[in-house]
């Protein structure tokens, strides 16, 4: 199993560290040639969605990754990664991959680099520690999208088909179960 982590900017190293702890072969994606070795699953990390969006276009990675995602490649987007996968961003006409039928609100908890931690239920896993950093959340979901976690009324994790998204950063905690959940999707494909 080979998992690619988009490494143009942001918290890619943390995801790769989690994959290493889980004994999974992870690799950085910075340029087109990085996709040559094949890919079984993709992680879009936290960081600045505007930066990653621009670099995806500039590096020529956008179209091939979009084709892979539309072709049912399992994808896990955390924080900015969720914004990249959403079909709609509130107050912003930009759509990146548009792969999951959710509307997200950027900087939903305020614009300061504010963060908080909590422990909430994640459907199918149980209580999970959740770290939010300048996080988005989901304001609307289309039919067929399953909401997996809710914090104070806000939807913070969802899945639909091959796509899994979370507002929070499971890669920043010692709890590996959300990544294991994603690996289950990769293995079951």
């Amino acid at each position, binding site marked *: 199993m080979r998992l690619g982590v988009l*490494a*143009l*900017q*942001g*918290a*890619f*190293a*943390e995801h790769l560290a989690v994959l290493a702890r889980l004994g999974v072969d992870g690799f950085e994606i*910075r*340029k087109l040639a990085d996709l040559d070795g094949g890919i079984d699953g993709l992680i879009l990390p*936290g*960081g*600045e969605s*505007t*930066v990653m969006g*621009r*670099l995806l276009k*500039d*590096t020529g990675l956008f179209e091939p990754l979009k084709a892979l995602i539309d072709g049912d490649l399992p994808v896990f987007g955390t*924080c*900015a990664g969720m914004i990249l996968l959403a079909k709609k961003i509130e107050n*912003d006409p930009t759509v990146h991959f548009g792969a999951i039928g959710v509307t997200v609100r*950027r*900087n939903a908890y*305020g*614009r*300061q*680099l*504010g*963060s908080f931690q909590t422990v909430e239920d994640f459907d199918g896993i149980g209580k999970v520690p959740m*770290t939010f*950093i*300048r996080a988005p959340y989901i304001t609307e979901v289309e039919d067929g999208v399953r909401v997996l976690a809710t914090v104070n009324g806000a939807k913070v994790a969802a899945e639909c088909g091959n796509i899994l998204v979370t507002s929070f950063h499971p890669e*920043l905690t010692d709890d590996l179960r959300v990544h294991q959940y994603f690996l289950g999707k990769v293995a079951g494909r």
Partner: protein
Amino acid sequence: MDRVNILENPAFKAKAEKINRLRGGVIMDCTTPDQAKIAEDAGAVAVMALERVPADIRAAGGVARMADPTVIQAIQNAVSIPVMAKARIGHFVEAQVLEALGVDCIDESEVLTPADDRYHIDKHQFSTPFVCGCRNLGEALRRISEGAAMMRTKGEAGTGDIVEAVRHLRQLKDDIRVVQNADDEELVSISREMGAPYHVMLYVAEHGRLPVLNFSAGGVATPADAALMVQLGAEGVFVGSGIFKSSNPEKRAKAIVRAVANYADASVIAEVSVGLGEAMRGIDSAGMPENQKIQGRGW
């Protein structure tokens, strides 16, 4: 608050974690909302809101202070990415004001005229993360002990000359190697010689790196400069005067972002360096009198 072991302090860890999202990014100095928008569109990971870029601060002389809150708020309203701003060294009230304005990160910066010639701000008192400048490991670990959640090597701001940035990053790496290779019984003496707080230095001895994110600053003018610093080990780059003092800021800003993302790929750096127009003219820092260098500010 646990000051004995600050690296395990939850408030400190939370600030360092927040800052981590900037990794691999370019932070650009901006003086107007229009410039901030150009930076955001070019792919800046954050902007530094300033009244004047360092080259102009140098040219203007006089006392350089925290930016007018009007400028900071206008920039905050113009962009969705994090906005940073500078406070004078030791000026904890400027820092309080910046925290009240809701900036995402405060740079306690030698680029401004110091307000205290002996002490820096006690950064543990703030919930906003701080970034500070350093020229060596001792300076970095003093700032981290005071609560800085991010470091940047200083370079020589406003010159467009990369040599000081290289010198400071190489010095930091040299110092880290010394600490990493030292026997345990040598560490207390090394700590005294470097002026590096012992307990934080133990982290460096064990991990061979700073306990917080470290960017490069002070002198980056071209995509190749930016990639040079990242190849040397910086985890991102601040660009001050280099963008808005060049002939084509939009194009240069995009090129520098791309060069940092693909720092190890010379063909990409070549491609983005084509047709950028003139870089900032710059000042050769080797010919600069010591009293005009700002890197020596900070204690």
